[in-house]
């Protein structure tokens, strides 16, 4: 009982503080910092006390089935918390750093116009952190994981009236979401592997794991690779690395806590958490180790050539995390935990004192200047030296990698659907969808050879719509409707698989419809007020004049993308459980459209509401700032 109460409180307390901070009036600066600091101090105390108590009572991993969100007999969505040594270390380090940063920011953020927003987001982040760290199953972990993604977006775009922070926030959010494909597919595959929503504590049962893996070796490896993708994205390993330096757009303490220390170590956390699952899969271990090794080798020279302090720290940290991947792959759990804590503290401090580097280094130069020091690379053959230098300066083209291979092609596909407009969408969408429904209710007329392909076909259609939404330049409302439409296609596609309760589809679509209607209303009223500044071709910064509308739309967009505030979130998982084990294509299409739908919605939000304001009756920022 005491375990359940305390461990639950580690999530409930931050939640409470977050809600209170939302309700406090904007003018009371000290209110936010007091709530945040009070909460985190209490949390740090209880965490420390509890860890001591837990260790004295034998350090036995604890699983707490917390809250059942849905249960229909064969499917159960459960919020589940889990406490073991990994959770203990992550929770303590996270609480301690948050404790320091909260105190730090209280003064540092003083008089900043987004004071309230900063503390709201910080508390939201900490809530997401605690939830992820304590997650006892994939569903709970994904819950926290998604929240991290959003809080990260909000912190990077903290200076929302400037172009680069907003662009980079969208960029980082997009790469995060790409990584999320890994988690979604891992969840889907593990449903089929275990035939239930497996709790992490079950991984400790070696026999159970071995038993399942023997029968499904391929699925096991598939899950491991998916986890690696998710972990690599979150921890900025190759090929995802370039997002980390670009995320350093918020106030320095937020960069320090988020990208210097806590958030960036979540990939390592995910691997540690699932280690018992893949430790006997040699290929998985080799892949993980190799990812880390290559990342370390490439990030190191990149760090060496950086001429800006924060990017240098970022790449140095990426290299260290690469080594942590190797350590995890080697099974050195304790070493990883020490390395994580040390690296987190070190980088936090380095980022926080980074502005001092000018005075310190200039003084150092003044007294100890040596013209042109010979570096290691100077001993290389010139051509090799220059090539390596140029490559490192270009960050090995990592930043272009995703544009070229992922986002570019998606946009090109989406542009093929440019004939769609808000006016004709209904005329095209409704008949086609009606035809799909007709087929669904009259499956006996569909030839047996074609029937198995129907779900994937519909899934594909849905995905195309999302791609169009993602590449839309002119009509914001169209983009929103396309993302909604995709959910309907997914529902239809999955329905073909087996006859199941309509209630499940309802759970899934109800959230989409409610949120979608609200979102549509928000866009419509913006369009009515700003007909000349209403497209997706550039950033408009309407949040300056319509802060409330922006918030409403953001919440609606989160609902439409299946963020854990609407039943859609449960529905996504539920529907995925109905995708068969052999329907790789359908699963992939659905996962991709789920992920790109989210990106498309955030893109609408960012382009309409964020960025330099289009009106210049007040100072606006230059695009390069």
């Amino acid at each position, binding site marked *: 009982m005491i375990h359940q109460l305390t461990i639950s409180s580690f999530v409930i307390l931050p939640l409470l503080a977050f809600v209170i901070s939302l309700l406090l009036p904007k003018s009371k600066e000290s209110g936010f910092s007091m709530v945040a600091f009070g909460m985190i101090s209490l949390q740090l105390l209880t965490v420390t006390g509890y860890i001591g108590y837990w260790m004295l009572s034998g350090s036995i991993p604890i699983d707490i089935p917390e809250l059942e969100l849905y249960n229909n007999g064969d499917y159960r969505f459960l919020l589940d918390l889990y406490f073991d040594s990994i959770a203990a270390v992550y929770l303590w380090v996270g609480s301690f750093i948050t404790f320091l940063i909260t105190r*730090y920011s209280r003064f540092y953020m003083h008089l900043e116009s987004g004071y309230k927003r900063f503390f709201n987001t910080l508390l939201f982040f900490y809530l997401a952190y605690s939830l992820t760290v304590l997650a006892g199953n994939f569903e709970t972990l994904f819950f926290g994981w998604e929240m991290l993604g959003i809080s990260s977006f909000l912190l990077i775009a903290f200076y929302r009236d400037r172009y680069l922070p907003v662009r980079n926030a969208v960029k980082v959010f997009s790469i995060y979401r790409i990584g999320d494909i890994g988690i979604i597919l891992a969840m889907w595959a593990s449903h089929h592997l275990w035939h239930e929503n497996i709790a992490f504590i079950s991984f400790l049962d070696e026999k159970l794991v071995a038993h399942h893996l023997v029968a499904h070796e391929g699925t096991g490896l598939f899950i491991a690779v998916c986890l690696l993708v998710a972990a690599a994205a979150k921890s900025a390993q190759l090929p995802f690395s370039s997002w980390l330096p670009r995320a350093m757009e918020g106030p320095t303490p937020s960069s320090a806590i988020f990208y210097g220390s806590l958030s960036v170590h979540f990939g390592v956390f995910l691997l540690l958490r699932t280690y018992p699952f893949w430790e006997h899969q040699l290929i998985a271990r080799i892949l993980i180790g190799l990812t880390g090794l290559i990342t370390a080798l490439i990030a190191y020279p990149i760090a060496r050539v950086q001429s800006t302090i*924060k990017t240098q720290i970022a790449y140095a940290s990426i*290299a260290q995390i690469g080594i942590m991947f190797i350590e995890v792959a080697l099974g050195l759990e304790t070493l990883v935990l020490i390395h994580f804590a040390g690296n987190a503290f*070190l980088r936090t*401090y380095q980022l926080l004192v980074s502005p001092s580097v000018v005075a310190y280094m200039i003084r150092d130069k003044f007294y100890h200047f040596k013209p042109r020091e010979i*570096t290691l690379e100077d001993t290389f053959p010139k051509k090799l030296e220059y090539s390596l230098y140029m490559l490192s300066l270009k960050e090995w083209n990592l930043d272009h990698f995703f544009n070229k291979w992922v986002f570019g092609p998606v946009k090109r596909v989406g542009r093929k659907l440019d004939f769609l407009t808000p006016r004709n969408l209904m005329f095209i969408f409704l008949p086609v969808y009606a035809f799909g429904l007709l087929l669904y209710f009259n499956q006996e007329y569909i030839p047996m050879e074609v029937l198995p392909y129907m779900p994937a076909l519909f899934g594909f259609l849905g995905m195309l719509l999302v791609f169009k939404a993602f590449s839309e330049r002119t009509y914001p409302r169209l983009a929103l409707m396309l993302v909604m439409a995709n959910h309907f296609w997914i529902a239809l596609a999955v329905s073909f698989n087996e006859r199941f309760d309509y209630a499940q589809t309802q759970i899934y679509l109800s959230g989409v419809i409610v949120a979608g209607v609200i979102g549509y209303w928000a866009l419509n009223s913006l369009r009515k007020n700003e007909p000349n500044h209403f497209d997706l071709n550039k950033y408009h910064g309407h949040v300056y004049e319509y802060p409330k509308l922006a918030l409403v739309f953001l919440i609606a967009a989160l609902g439409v993308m299946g963020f854990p505030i609407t039943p859609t979130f449960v529905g996504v998982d539920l529907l995925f459980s109905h995708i068969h084990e052999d329907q790789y294509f359908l699963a992939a299409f659905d996962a991709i459209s789920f992920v790109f739908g989210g990106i498309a919605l955030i893109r609408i939000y960012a382009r309409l509401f964020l960025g330099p304001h289009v009106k210049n009756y007040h100072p606006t920022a230059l695009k390069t700032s």
Partner: protein
Amino acid sequence: MAHPVSFDLQHTLHELGHYLPAQAPLKDFVHHNTLHAFQRLPFHKAVQTASENFGYTVYWNLEKYRELYHRNKINPEILDRIIISHKSADELSRWRHLLLHSPLAEFSEPKIGQLRILWKKHFNLNLDKEVHQNLFRIISAYLDQGISIWNFPVESKGLVAGIRTLEKNSFSSFIKSKRARQLLFNNQTKIEDLLDVLVGNTDRYAQYLFDQQFAHPGWSGMVSVLENHPESLLDKRVITLKDLIFLECILEIDALDRRRGSNWSALAAYIPDHLPGILDAPIYSEIIEIHKLWQEAMEWTYYDQVIKGLQLGPEKEEKPTTTPPFQALFCIDDRSCSIRRYVERFAPNASTFGTAGFFNLPFYFQPEHGKFMTKVCPAPVTPLHVIKESESKLRHQKDAHFSKHTKGIFGGWAISQTMGFWSALKLAKSIFLPSETPAMVSSFHHMDPNGKLTVSCKNPDHKHHGLQIGFTVSEMAAAMEGLLKSIGLVADFAPLVYIMGHGASSVNNTHYAGYDCGACSGRSGSVNARVAAQIGNNPEVRIILGERGIQIPHTTQFVGGLHDTTRDEMVFFDLKVLSGVNRVLHEQNLQVFETALDYNAKERSRRFQTINSKQAVKKVHDQVKLRALSLFEPRPEWNHATNALCIVGRRENNRHLFLDKRAFLNSYDYRIDPEGTHLFGILKAVAPVCGGINLEYYFSKVDNQRLGAGSKLPHNVIGLIGVANGMGGDLRTGLPQQMVDIHDPLRILITVEHFPEVILKAIQTSQSTYEWFANDWVKLVCINPESKQALVFRDERFEVYEPITQTIRSVHDLDGLLESTGENLPVFLIA
């Protein structure tokens, strides 16, 4: 290739250099007029031109003015007077209505960038996005002063030469397109050739380059500054604006070729005929006019009180009956304004003086073990002397967190698991118990107070880097004479004359140089103060001074000192030379200074909203001291924020006024300078220095996004020379938001106590000085020393000014008033 003469590259480069931000690398940060390029025009016209061409916001928000009006901070009577004087009495009601009720209107679309958007419009290509990232990376890596561990690998022979070498000898490259590579490798390629490919119409070349460079004014400005002042980099780099433009054009051609293949052509065909050129003169704009009237009304609401206050000064010359216990020279700096008030309060018979804080001694300072010399005089002055330090015991501590080993693979691995935990403790300590760290900047560490300085020149032929080491006796005497005469201290010397330099301390502050003494090129004023005192004590110098009418008694001794404006602490130098009597006197004075510092800290604390100003004096002072050591404190002190005044005249005539730390005070006695020669010397420095500070604050306040550096909280240090937001941004120039939060954008009012014809003659001595006054970049008011009549300098002549303010309130409980509010206070009479 032959080029028509309509485009003159040299001229365009020169123009660009003129209009780009002229901000030096961070270590040499000195305040200057942000819009110095427009100084040839009258203020309002200049800012309108700047606004319409470059898109700057040049006045405060309309809503802000209106709010001030409704809160009675803009005087309605003055507003009416301003409208009438600029328009006419008939139009008063119409303009008043416009000022108060016209809706917020957008300013016209700036002329800059109009050519550049054509790329996006016609070729659907965001050229900035394609080019900037690589361009910034390259220049930043090339200019880097010590952040990167692996430096730009080609010895510095110029940017383009370096890139050529790299591109020729590498498997990887920035420039992929064949054409761009050929253009780069061909040594004959000129910028005109590149512009021919890109623009194709010689008439628009200049405008294109303006668009291109003003898309990243920070970097271009930095390059231009470094081209003209290569000495401001410790690690020298050869760089020119021309090279930057060349490289950027190549990168643009490359990007267009890569993205569009052969499917693009020069812009010429797409440029609309009516597209306005850059730097065309502005035409009448009502919205600008409205802002202008508000601005003047806001300024004169304050000026009016000040003028009235000065007129209420002592009627008769009061000859002091006793010799003052001490005299103290402070810097003209506005931060000395309040400390002087407290020194005078706790030592009512003492007198204080204000003068530029290099104390008329321009020289370079060469600290012992230093590899370079530091200039410690106003930025435009080029010194001919160097003062060397010896026997210094000062050592700077190291901090492993800045070590390059933490960035390595194995180093990082070992360090993160060991020192990483130490960082956690250090961080906790610095948050809960801030203390001195190696990362901080301390004004007291500029010079070792126990070291020796080579003040007097032993042998004029012995040069150090072409500079004379120390001053000869006649040079010393001339400097001292100039100093003392300009401030009017020529008789009645007290036993102790303090010469106080000032400096600031802070941590985590990239703009630290801007907090130190502006008259010492952004350095602490300790060396100058100490040298000045040593010169004043030199018996040979005193003999010469005596011959020139300045009799300094043997009993009088000069003491150099330093006031740390952040911590409100003082140190005094070379106390060993004091006579026994003076040592005792100094001990007594020390208590005055201590008390004054405590009270000054308390007064400053009213502006620090995180300190409760109502606590006991000592307690407040302790908290103020901590600000200089706190990593998390973006405002260690307010520096020059709220500055609005410069008063040139005898202290006796403004000592009765409470000016709320808003005034630069320069002591000056018109009686010993009937011709105005010293006055010229003062105004020559005051206009650009105080005016420069004032206007930098003004513009950083009204447009913190484009003319200021934005919030400093997300700043990222670039190559130790500048700051940018995040990773890929342009360098930010101007002042960060945190320096100007409480500043009201008023142009500075300079009041001079002398006769109008002498003042006129003085300011007209030099054209560059006169420009400041004639074009209204600073406002000038003459206070006739005999009649106290005020004359305002307008349209190049003095006109009588009758203040609307009738009475100035006198305050009895200043301390109580100060701790009760954090806002700007009006002028008061000190009861």
